[in-house]
C-alpha cells in the first residue's frame, strides 16, 4: 500500500504562539518501500509519523493510504489509529510494563477481537520469528534492551499491518547491537514487504537502510530520493552538509562568465567549471555562490586550486581529517596516511567534476507569499 501526503501542515498552539511543525508537505511513498524520514531534531519528522499513525490531526492537507483517505483537514475526515491498520515501534519501545511479553504482543489482536487460539498462534509465530519465544512469560522489566526492542517489533508485526511506523527504533541500543538489529530490521521489512516509514536523525542509518530518504528541515521537505541521489546530488547546502561525514566543504565563491566559459573565483584564484556543471551554473544568478566539495574529493598536491595551512588533524583510524585554513575559510580534507603535521603549507587539488554549486543563500524557510494558516491577522497602521 502506498502512502501519500498532500499539502500536509501541522500547527501547534503553545504559550508563545503558533508553531509550524510541518508546512505544506508533499510526499508519496511507494508500496512496500522502506522510506527514511531524516532530519535534525525539531524538523517535524516525528510530527509526520504521528500524523501518519493518526495520533495527531493535520491542520491542513490530506493523507492517503492507497486509495483511502485516512485524514483530511479540508474534508473533515479523520480515522483513529485503530482504524488505519498501522503499527508503530517507539524509541522507548513503550511496552506495557504491567503485562507479560505474551500479553504485550497479543494486546493489539485482542483489541481487534480475534479469537483466543488464533491470537496464541500469531503471537507464537511472531515471537519465534524474532527469537523471543522463550521470553513470553516475562515482564518487560526483566528483559534486556535488545530483547525489549524485539518485543516491540513483534507487537508491531503480529497483526500484519499495512503500514509500519518506526520512531528512532535503534537509538536506545548500543553501537554493536544497533548494527546487527539494523540488518535484521531490513531483512524483516523485506520479508513482510510492508510499507514502512522510518524516522531517524542519524544519516548513516538513513543511508544504509533506506530505499528512499526524505530530508526535512524546519517542517519542510528539503529533498527526497534514493540515498545515492541525496549523497551525490544534494539539492541545497543543508542537504549537502547534513549528509556525509565529515560534511561537505562549502566555499564562498563568485561566479563569472566569459563568452564561452563559466568560472568560479575563490579569492583571487580562478577555477574552471566542468562542462557538466554549466547547466546548473546557468540557473544560478551570477555573483556570489557556494562551491561545494566533499572532503574525500580533495587531495594534497604540489600545485592545486587551493592553498592553505594545516591547523588541526584528527585521526579516524584508517583515515585522517585535516582542517586546512585557506584564505579565511576552513576546509576539511579526508586523506590516507602518512600524516602531515600541523603548520605545514599545503596545496589542495580537486576534480572539477566533483564540484557542486549552490546559491549563496539557502531557500527561505518562510516564503513571504504564504502567510501562516492561523496566525494573527496583520495589524493595520
Amino acid at each position, binding site marked *: 500500500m502506498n502512502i501519500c501526503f498532500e499539502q500536509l501542515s501541522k*500547527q501547534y*498552539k503553545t504559550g508563545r504562539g503558533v508553531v509550524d511543525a510541518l508546512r505544506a508537505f508533499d510526499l508519496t511513498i511507494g508500496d512496500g518501500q522502506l522510506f527514511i524520514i531524516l532530519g535534525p531534531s525539531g524538523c517535524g519528522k516525528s510530527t509526520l509519523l504521528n500524523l501518519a499513525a493518526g495520533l495527531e*490531526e493535520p*491542520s491542513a492537507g490530506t493523507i492517503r493510504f492507497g486509495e483511502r483517505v485516512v485524514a483530511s483537514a479540508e474534508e473533515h475526515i479523520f480515522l483513529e489509529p485503530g482504524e488505519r491498520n498501522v503499527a508503530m515501534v517507539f524509541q522507548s519501545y513503550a511496552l506495557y510494563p504491567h503485562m507479560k511479553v505474551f500479553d504485550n504482543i497479543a494486546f493489539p489482536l485482542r483489541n481487534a477481537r480475534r479469537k483466543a487460539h488464533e491470537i496464541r498462534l500469531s503471537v507464537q509465530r511472531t515471537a519465534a520469528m524474532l527469537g523471543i519465544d522463550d521470553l513470553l512469560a516475562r515482564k518487560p522489566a526483566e528483559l534486556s534492551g535488545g530483547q525489549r526492542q524485539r518485543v516491540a517489533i513483534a507487537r508491531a508485526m503480529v497483526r500484519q499491518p499495512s503500514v509500519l511506523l518506526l520512531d528512532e527504533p535503534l537509538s536506545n541500543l548500543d553501537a554493536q547491537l544497533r548494527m546487527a538489529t539494523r540488518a535484521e530490521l531490513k531483512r524483516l521489512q523485506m520479508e513482510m514487504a510492508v510499507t514502512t516509514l522510518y524516522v531517524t536523525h542519524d544519516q548513516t542509518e538513513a543511508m544504509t537502510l533506506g530505499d528512499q530518504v526524505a530530508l526535512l528541515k524546519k517542517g519542510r521537505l528539503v529533498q527526497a530520493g534514493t540515498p545515492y541521489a541525496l549523497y551525490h546530488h544534494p539539492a541545497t547546502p543543508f542537504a549537502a552538509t547534513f549528509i556525509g561525514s565529515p560534511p561537505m566543504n562549502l566555499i564562498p565563491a563568485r561566479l563569472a562568465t566569459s563568452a564561452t566559459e563559466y568560472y568560479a573565483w575563490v579569492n583571487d584564484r580562478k577555477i574552471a567549471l566542468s562542462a557538466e556543471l554549466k547547466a546548473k551554473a546557468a540557473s544560478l544568478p551570477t555573483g556570489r555562490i557556494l562551491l561545494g566539495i566533499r572532503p574525500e574529493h580533495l587531495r594534497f598536491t604540489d600545485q592545486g586550486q587551493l592553498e592553505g595551512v594545516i591547523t588541526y588533524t584528527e585521526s579516524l583510524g584508517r583515515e585522517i581529517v585535516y582542517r586546512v585554513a585557506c584564505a579565511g575559510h576552513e576546509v576539511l580534507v579526508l586523506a590516507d596516511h602518512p600524516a602531515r603535521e600541523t603548520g605545514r603549507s599545503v596545496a589542495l587539488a580537486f576534480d572539477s567534476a566533483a564540484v557542486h554549486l549552490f546559491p549563496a543563500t539557502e531557500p527561505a524557510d518562510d516564503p513571504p507569499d504564504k502567510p501562516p494558516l492561523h496566525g494573527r491577522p496583520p495589524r493595520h497602521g
Partner: protein
Amino acid sequence: MTRDHRPASDFRQARQPARRPPLTRDQVRGFWFLSPLFGFIGLFILIPVLGTIADSLFRDIVYLPVRFVFLENFRALWADPSFWSAVRFSALFVLVSVPLEVLLGLGIALVLNEPFALRGWVRACILIPWAIPAAVAGRIFQLVYNFSYGAANYLLDLLSISREPLNWLGSDLSAFIAVVVADAWQTTPFAAIILLAGLAAIPEDLYGQAKVDQAGMVARFRHITLPLLKPVLIVTLLFRTIQALRIFDIIFVLTGGGPGGATESLSMLAYRHFAAGDFGYGSAASVVLFLMAVVAAIAYVRVGRFQET
C-alpha cells in the same frame, strides 16, 4: 430545498475564517472526560456557594416568609458584637496557630530528615494525629482539659507548675491556648510532612560543599536550608492559613465556642444560625468567611504560579 442553496453557516465560515484552530477530537474527548468532575464540583460546591451568596441577601428564617433584604443581613452582622468577636478570634487564631504549627512542623521535619534508628517508625507515628478525625481529637482534648481529672492538670501538678487545678476552658486566654494546642496536635503532622518533603528535595551535595567551606550547623541551616525551603514554607503557611480560617470541628466539640463566645470562629457563628433556622444571617457570615478564604486562596494560587516560573 434547492441544491445550490448553501446553509447560512457556510457563508459565515467562508467570510470569517476561524481565529483559533478548532478543538481536536482528543480535546473534545478531554472535555467529556472532565465533565463528571465539572459536574460534581459545579453541583455540589460552586452552586451551593453561589446559593449561599444569594441567600445572604434574603431574610430567610425557617418560620417566616422569605424576603429580599439586600445588605440588611450584613448590616446586622456589622452591628453584632459576636460577629466581631468571631472575626477577632479567627484572626488571632490564624496569627498564633499557623506560625506555631509551621515552626513545630519544621522542627519535626528537621529531626526526621536526619538518619537515626527507628526513623521510619517515628515518621509513621506522626501521621497518627493527622489520621484521627478532628471531632475525635476534640473529644480527646476535652478530656485532657477536664478540670477534675484531665491530663492537663495532672501534668501541671506532676511538673510542679501549679498545685491548684486550672480551669482550662474557663478563661478566654486559657481556652484559646487549649484550642491552639489541640489544633496544633492535629495539624502539625501535615506541616511536618510537607516540610520534610521540601527538605528531602534539597541536594545533599550542597551540604557537603558547605561543610568543605567550613560552614557550621547553624550557618548551613541559615544559608542553605532556609532559603531553599522558602517556597515550600510559604506554601505550607498559606495552606495552613486557609485551613485555620475555617476551623470548626475541634472548637465545636472542645469548647462549643465558649466561654462566653470567646473561642467562637466564623464557621461556628454561621453554623449556629443555620441550626437555629436563620439561613440568611448564617449565609451572610459564611460569605464573609468565604471572601477571606478566597483572598487566601488567590494568594496561594499566585504563589503557586510564581514558583512555577
